[in-house]
């Protein structure tokens, strides 16, 4: 905090969205203040200490490629790494890392402290300062702070309420932390639409009380994989996870106590995520499933605590103990923290622009869980984009928006704004129509140049990006230019069950055979690079050469959609009056206010016939406007 209490950008909240927002804004050159009630908990992992997974892993790498913090912090904290979907080809590889609960926030804090122009302040924001409908700053318990742009990233804290069983509930943003009530009330009073979601977390147990002989051990991949393309953190040693299964005993306990669950007893009004159901949900909705998988995941290098992944619950504490004791290996387990459900306010995201600015209040930005998402990566991606746009606005520069064919972050934000969400939103690869383009291996290639151009990268990151680009090119060229002799190729081909060659043949030709891996070719052809360290570059050629036709077609499809996106829709189009459009489409478009024709087409309930009429209406409207002005 400086004496005049005036900044360019203020970030409210120091979670995953807030940290990235603060760092991005400051990196762009905005004087930035991050306000959060407990500076010791910046970057804290509220739930499972794991980063990545399907689609989310790509987002973590995208955040890194854009100069963000998440990738580095994960590398420095990861205690078990696995590449999910490894057997399904590099197009859908998804890195996932179990992190040390202490090391991760430590890494976030260290990264924040490195950013010049970024200031931290411990306090709770209670309201916004506004003038003529524009944001001018925030109010806290300790006074007022001024800024032209404010990014709110309050997570699960807005009127948060925790439930443990059907009769114990308490206002909280996370266990042991006060909820943010005034800020929620004020935003609602200003006319923003507000709604409620819920989510839950499983119990934690003491690893010393687990009988691991009754579980299955799952080790991490012995790989030097890194989320960060630019910064090489040193990686901690790995820890195993353990797998066990629920059975009849657990079903019986849960069924007998269903009426004591906060989620089932009707105490909670909001909707929860279907992909992350409580154990109560699983038992009720899938009565035929004989058993459910449970992962015991380490919470830290030094900690003996384990996270019981798969048993999220809002049953009372004693029931949790009872059902845990029915699970093989957990017969005598000690519970260290009980599971709970939490419900909280969020703002239905159709109220935002693609920059994450609130339509109604210029200068106010929302990011993270308060936009209806769930997950650290989703929060981080939004935070970075909101922080960057807040800074760009203050600096008088044009906004930064990622399209659906550029990044999962683009898919995420466009989905939120265009389609809205009626359950906590998380990313999946099936949400992206161009998943062959949006891969983890090419995150820095896709987004690095954009970040550099805008000024989101530090000097050091810029240099690293240049080296990477050079290396990508070299690997690519090697495959296209290298000719391999039959004597070198045939042993490899034999191993892969591929027919031998008689003539010298180009590496890229052999790579086109589905069964022949790029790394094997690199060895056979005596490449100068090491496929086990240049994993990204090798994975990239693996898909871009092997499935060239597919990638090209997808890129073409993306381009043709872009052309459609070029047809801009005026912000102040009076949708209510466009009678040639069906009333359902009129209503939906008035709510979302799409900025392009392509976006309008993605709104559920808008038909191609509506789009055709929309084009005509816009033309007519423009002509009419032109007459009046």
């Amino acid at each position, binding site marked *: 905090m400086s004496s005049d209490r005036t900044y360019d950008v203020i970030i409210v909240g120091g979670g995953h969205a807030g940290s990235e927002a603060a760092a991005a804004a400051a990196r762009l050159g905005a004087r930035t203040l991050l306000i959060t009630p407990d500076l010791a908990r910046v970057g804290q992992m509220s739930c499972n200490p794991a980063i990545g997974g399907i689609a989310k892993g790509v987002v973590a790498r995208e955040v890194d490629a854009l100069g963000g913090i998440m990738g580095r912090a994960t590398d420095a904290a990861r205690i078990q790494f696995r590449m999910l979907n490894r057997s399904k*080809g590099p197009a859908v590889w998804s890195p996932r890392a179990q992190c040390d609960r202490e090391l991760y926030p430590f890494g976030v804090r260290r990264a924040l402290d490195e950013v010049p122009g970024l200031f931290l302040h411990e306090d709770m924001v209670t309201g916004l300062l506004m003038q003529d409908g524009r944001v001018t700053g925030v109010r806290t318990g300790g006074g007022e702070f001024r800024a032209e742009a404010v990014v709110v990233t309050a997570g699960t804290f807005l009127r948060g309420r925790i439930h443990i069983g059907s009769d114990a509930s308490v206002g909280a943003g996370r266990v042991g932390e006060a909820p943010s009530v005034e800020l929620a009330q004020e935003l609602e009073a200003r006319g923003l639409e507000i709604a409620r979601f819920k989510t839950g977390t499983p119990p934690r147990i003491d690893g010393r009380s687990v009988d691991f002989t009754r579980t299955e051990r799952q080790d991490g991949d012995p790989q030097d994989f890194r989320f960060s393309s630019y910064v090489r953190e040193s990686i901690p040693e790995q820890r195993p996870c353990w797998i066990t299964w629920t059975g009849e005993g657990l079903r019986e306990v849960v069924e007998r106590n269903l009426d004591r669950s906060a989620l089932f007893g009707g105490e909670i009004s909001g909707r929860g995520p279907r992909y992350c159901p409580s154990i109560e949900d699983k038992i009720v909705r899938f009565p035929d499933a004989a058993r459910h*998988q449970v992962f015991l995941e380490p919470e830290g290098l030094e900690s003996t605590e384990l996270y019981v992944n798969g048993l999220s619950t809002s049953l009372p504490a004693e029931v949790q103990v009872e059902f845990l004791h029915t699970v093989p290996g957990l017969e005598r387990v000690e519970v260290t923290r009980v599971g709970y459900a939490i419900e909280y306010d969020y703002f239905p995201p159709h109220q935002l622009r693609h920059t994450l600015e609130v339509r109604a209040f210029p200068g106010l930005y929302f990011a993270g869980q308060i936009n209806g998402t769930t997950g650290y990566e989703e929060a981080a991606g939004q935070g970075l984009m909101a922080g960057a746009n807040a800074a760009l606005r203050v600096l008088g520069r044009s906004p930064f928006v990622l399209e659906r064919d550029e990044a999962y972050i683009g898919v995420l934000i466009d989905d939120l704004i265009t389609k809205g969400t009626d359950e906590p939103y998380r990313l*999946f*690869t*099936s949400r992206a129509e161009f998943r062959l383009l949006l891969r983890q291996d090419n995150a820095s290639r896709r987004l690095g140049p954009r970040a550099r151009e805008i000024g989101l990268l530090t000097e050091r990151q810029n240099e690293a990006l240049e080296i990477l680009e050079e290396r990508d090119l070299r690997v690519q060229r090697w495959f296209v230019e290298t000719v391999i002799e039959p004597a070198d190729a045939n042993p490899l081909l034999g191993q892969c069950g591929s027919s031998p060659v008689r003539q010298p043949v180009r590496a890229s030709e052999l790579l086109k055979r589905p069964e022949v891996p790029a790394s094997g070719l690199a060895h056979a052809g005596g490449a100068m690079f090491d496929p086990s360290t240049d994993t990204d570059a090798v994975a990239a050629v693996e898909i871009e050469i092997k499935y060239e036709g597919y990638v090209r077609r997808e890129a073409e499809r993306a381009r043709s959609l872009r052309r459609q996106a070029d047809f801009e829709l005026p912000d102040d189009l009076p949708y209510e009056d466009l009678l*040639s459009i069906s009333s359902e489409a009129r209503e939906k478009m008035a709510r979302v206010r799409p900025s392009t024709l392509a976006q309008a087409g993605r709104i559920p309930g808008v038909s191609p016939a509506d789009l055709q*009429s929309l084009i*005509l209406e816009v033309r007519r409207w423009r002509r009419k406007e032109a007459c009046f002005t």
Partner: protein
Amino acid sequence: MTDEASSRLPELAVDTIAALATSPGVGAIALVRMSGPEAFEVLRALTPGEDDPAPRTATLRSLTKGEGGDLLDRALVTSFPRPESYTGEDMVEISCHGGWLVPRMILDACVATGARLAEPGEFTRRAVLHGKMDLVQAEAVLDLIEGRSKAQHDAALFQVERGLSRRIGELREQLVTVEAYLAHHIDFPEEDEAPVTVDRVADAADALRDALEELLETAPEGELLREGAVTVLAGPPNSGKSSLYNALLGEERAIVTDIPGTTRDALEAVISIGGFPFRLVDTAGLRDSDDQVEELGVEVARRYLDRADLVLFCVESQADLGSAELEFLTGLGDVPTVLLRTKVDLTPRDRVSGPLTSEGLAAEGLDDGHRVNAADVRESVDLSVVDGTGLGRLKEILPELVYGGLVRTGTSVPALTRARQSEAVQKARDQVVAFIEALEEGTPVAVASALLRPAETALEELLGLISTDEILDRVFREFCIGK
């Protein structure tokens, strides 16, 4: 889109349209209808001083040309407030006296007070625009109006009732299921005993391909159902073609004489046989002639034969099949042909001989069996228009020959009746086949799955639908997710 292109787009549905819904000039009663935001205003202008009729209730009203104007007619007026109307807009229907004059005057009065004349098909187009029906239904409405046979009527009505739309919707559902399996396979690798193997995806894709192909098989017959099967009467001069043409039509349309070379230009008529539409064409007798007009007639006949769906080849029963006839049959290639031995009343029974079908021709060893085999002679019928021999038999076999599939399944099945429809289904099928082949080649499912989106788009465009995120919904419904 250029402005030139947009000027060719239909007018915006912001104005009110009016049209005469019944044929002009005929009938005791005619129907004038209006649709659009001004429809009730226009009605008020025609019925000054009167209350609005109660919705959906036929009400007697005096129609005048505006305040103090002359009385046009006393008519039954019904109003349909939106959205519960055919078009989804405010609509008015006026049942007035028929003939040339009254409907015309009422229509003029509507136009004079704020409506404009509708384009052909515009009411239905507005119904689509307002989500009252999908594109396939709208097409069926046109078929229903233009229908000329029972089978076409049944098929069109079935589609108006969403029969085909539902089938296409089901196919799209099936496609979404395949994509849901893929989504589960890719997006939830760590779930309880992942239930979706690549084999399961491939099986679902195979079933989808089969279902698409089954629907595609209806396209040839379905399209014929709309147009009528082109059925060409051909054969040597004087063989009785025109006589048969008249007999099938039930009226003396073609000139019949005993002079060979009577028919010159081709005659065409759509008739319904066994409920199915046939576009019957009488042509000039085939022979080399010095007469220039007859020569041209033969030329026309050949052109019809090129696009024939069925040929009725007429040869007098007392004449033997000569090499000229056999050559002609061979020249038809694979067009299904019925050999008609005409004028059997003139020929003693035991002298009517000769081969029945391609196989028969070959077996008899008449001429070069090889070449005749190339023709597709399905049946042979002995015929007389004088005593009616064979006519019943001919009418019996014709529907079976052209519409065999529909005869067996009945016409209340989803059938593709337009090129637009079969092209879209074909595209979806091709993409699904490409997907299956990619899997067989060992392409990872995550890559191959890129082939399915265009298939989905093709089916959605067919219905004029939009893509929504149903895949994940399906995953969550069918699988227990939640690591």
